[in-house]
């Protein structure tokens, strides 16, 4: 399969390039909306475009000559006007009528889309062709896209990129800290207007390929996919654009190849894969994968972190148990198993890890023994546990019998800074509230001097 022919084939190139331009513009604007915490406005304005589309198609039908591409442009323009009206209606409801944002958004979405459906059903009988044409914009129809539209889409996508680059710093300030931007006279109204204009442009570019109903997903999915990977604004934009463009391309390829394959294998089904939904599915898949695999915030990373922590607790418990048995005492695997009361795999992993860290050595006869380093580590854990008990009893006046539980948890999570603070506060102590000796700092430090 030659992927390059998607850019050269006279039938395939217009849909492919058109979709990729759509993915590019939509993901940049979607990132803006996500960071502005106004993801829903994209959903509302794309639905608000529908009455504009129908009206535009209707007006185009009055021209006495064959319009073709011109009627496309007319439809785009009147869709943009409808978006503008929708955006104005939302802000009117919010600012003037004091209606809460979510209610205003729902209201405008429903009313505008309803008007669109009403208009469309009116022309269903009188202009059957027009009706079909305007329905194309609901879910998108790329196959009939022509080369003539590509320069227009390219121009609009390029314009989006240019605005994001030119306004990068004011945008950053405005999205992060609106009050700061206002006080500094960063032309917040101008920037806000530009953002709204970009959103409308993205919708107009996208409605032909992905359709107004799915447009909101195309705005937000690449942004969600990009966000967990970086904490730099420019990288967020770059990643979102990459996700948007790649999923548009893949959606196209799978739609064409998949439809061909299905037609060959099951010609009786007459089944074809629509491009718009496929593009969105790819973008959504990227978003899901990101949420799962992203470093730090991803679900997988969290699971690994939790497992590692549990494993560490098990190891430290074993060290403590060995410490209680005394220096140079030897234990067998079975004894370790009793001390740990964990599953076989975790036990085995524990012993392996401790040996690898150089805290345990395996003596003759398969018996395990603490090394000097292991002894120091065990002393430190016991020391933290008992110091924490002292702190709870002496400084927070908690009952002596109640502090063991808290210390049992805290001994594993205490940071070096917290330890230093605790030592500074408590001074040099010998015994804990249960009159047990506290290992000294020297004992608990490795290498010992």
């Amino acid at each position, binding site marked *: 399969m030659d992927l390059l022919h998607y850019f050269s084939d006279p039938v395939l190139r217009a849909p492919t390039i058109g979709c990729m331009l759509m993915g590019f513009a939509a993901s940049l604007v979607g990132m803006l909306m996500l*960071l502005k915490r106004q993801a829903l406005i994209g959903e509302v304005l794309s639905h608000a475009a529908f009455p504009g589309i129908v009206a535009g198609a209707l007006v185009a039908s009055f021209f006495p000559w064959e319009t073709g591409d011109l009627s496309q442009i007319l439809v785009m323009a009147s869709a943009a006007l409808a978006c503008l009206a929708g955006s104005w209606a939302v802000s009117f409801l919010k600012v003037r009528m004091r209606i809460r944002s979510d209610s205003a958004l729902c209201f405008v979405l429903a009313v505008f889309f309803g008007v669109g459906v009403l208009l469309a059903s009116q022309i269903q009988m009188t202009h059957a062709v027009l009706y079909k044409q305007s329905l194309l914009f609901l879910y998108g129809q790329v196959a009939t896209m022509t080369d003539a539209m590509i320069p227009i889409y390219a121009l609009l996508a390029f314009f989006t990129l240019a605005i994001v680059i030119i306004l990068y710093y004011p945008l950053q300030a405005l*999205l992060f800290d609106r*009050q700061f931007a206002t006080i500094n006279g960063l032309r917040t109204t101008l920037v806000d207007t530009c953002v709204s204009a970009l959103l409308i442009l993205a919708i107009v570019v996208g409605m032909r390929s992905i359709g107004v109903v799915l447009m909101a997903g195309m705005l937000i999915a690449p942004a969600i996919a990009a966000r967990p990977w970086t904490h730099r604004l420019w990288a967020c934009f770059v990643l979102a654009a990459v996700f948007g463009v790649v999923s548009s391309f893949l959606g196209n390829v799978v739609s064409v190849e998949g439809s061909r394959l299905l037609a060959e294998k099951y010609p009786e089904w007459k089944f074809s894969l629509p491009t718009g939904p496929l593009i969105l599915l790819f973008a959504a898949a990227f978003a899901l994968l990101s949420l799962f695999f992203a470093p730090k915030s991803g679900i997988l990373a969290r699971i690994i972190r939790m497992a590692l922590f549990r494993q560490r607790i098990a190891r430290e418990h074993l060290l403590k148990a060995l410490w209680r048995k005394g220096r140079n005492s030897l234990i067998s695997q079975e004894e370790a198993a009793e001390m740990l009361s964990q599953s076989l795999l975790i036990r085995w992993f524990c012993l392996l890890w401790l040996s690898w860290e150089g805290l345990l050595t395996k003596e003759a006869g398969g018996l395990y023994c603490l090394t000097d380093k292991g002894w120091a580590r065990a002393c430190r854990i016991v020391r933290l546990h008992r110091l924490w008990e002292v702190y709870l009893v002496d400084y927070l006046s908690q009952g002596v019998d109640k502090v063991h539980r808290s210390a049992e948890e805290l001994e594993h999570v205490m940071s070096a800074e917290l330890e230093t603070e605790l030592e500074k506060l408590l001074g040099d102590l010998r015994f804990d509230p249960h009159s047990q000796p506290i290992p000294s700092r020297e004992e608990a430090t490795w290498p010992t001097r």
Partner: protein
Amino acid sequence: MHSQERQEPAIEVSHLTANYQKAPVLWDINLLIPAGGRMVAIVGPNGAGKSTLLKVLLGLVSPSSGHVRILGRPLEEVRRSIAYIPQRGDVDWDFPITSLDVVMMGCYGRMPLLRWPSKRDRDLAQRMLQKVGMLPYAHRQISQLSGGQQQRIFLARALMQDAEIYFMDEPFAGIDAVTEQEIFHLFQELQKEKKTLVVVHHDLSTVERYFDWVVVLNTCLIASGPTSEVFQAETILRAYGANYALLNEAARLKLYQAGLP
């Protein structure tokens, strides 16, 4: 000419009345804070309108009547001479931005619309981070910093602005004692450079130690002047007493009847 400008009061408020949505009401406030390095505390009970006053001074809330002059001129003309440290709740902490980027914002006000920050701005931002002891954290995302560290980053941004007047809304709320001391130390340095600091402050016990000018507020202005003269038990009792509840309610009613937003 320059010395003459210095004579203008830092802040001049006359017959200011403000009522912004659910924010506390301000009623007929006349206030004059002289220039020349004052450290001003705005104190008053909850709902007295301290933050509202600050927002009016900064042009974030437009007054229903009256006017504000900063350094003897309307706010629009002196935007570059004022800096603001927001309350912690007013910022999107999840935003993808590093400490250094936040501090860099301090120079955006000076930048023409289509210009990008230069190498010099970047160096300056690093110096400011150094000044607040946060240089090692320059490339951390801001949500990974503690409350005190976040406050220092915002202080560095304000320093970057090189303003004449610094406004702050409860800069000491929710931070540790060490950071509070360090921030206060920076305040003193600013004061030495004859900068004016206006701080909404909730901790009455530290007012006398930190500030040399106090504005006592509860819907209307109760007192304004040097700390030693104004910060007396009798004044504070008046501000925090129940007597002002009536005025507050009456002012709200009046503004509502007048059809103001």
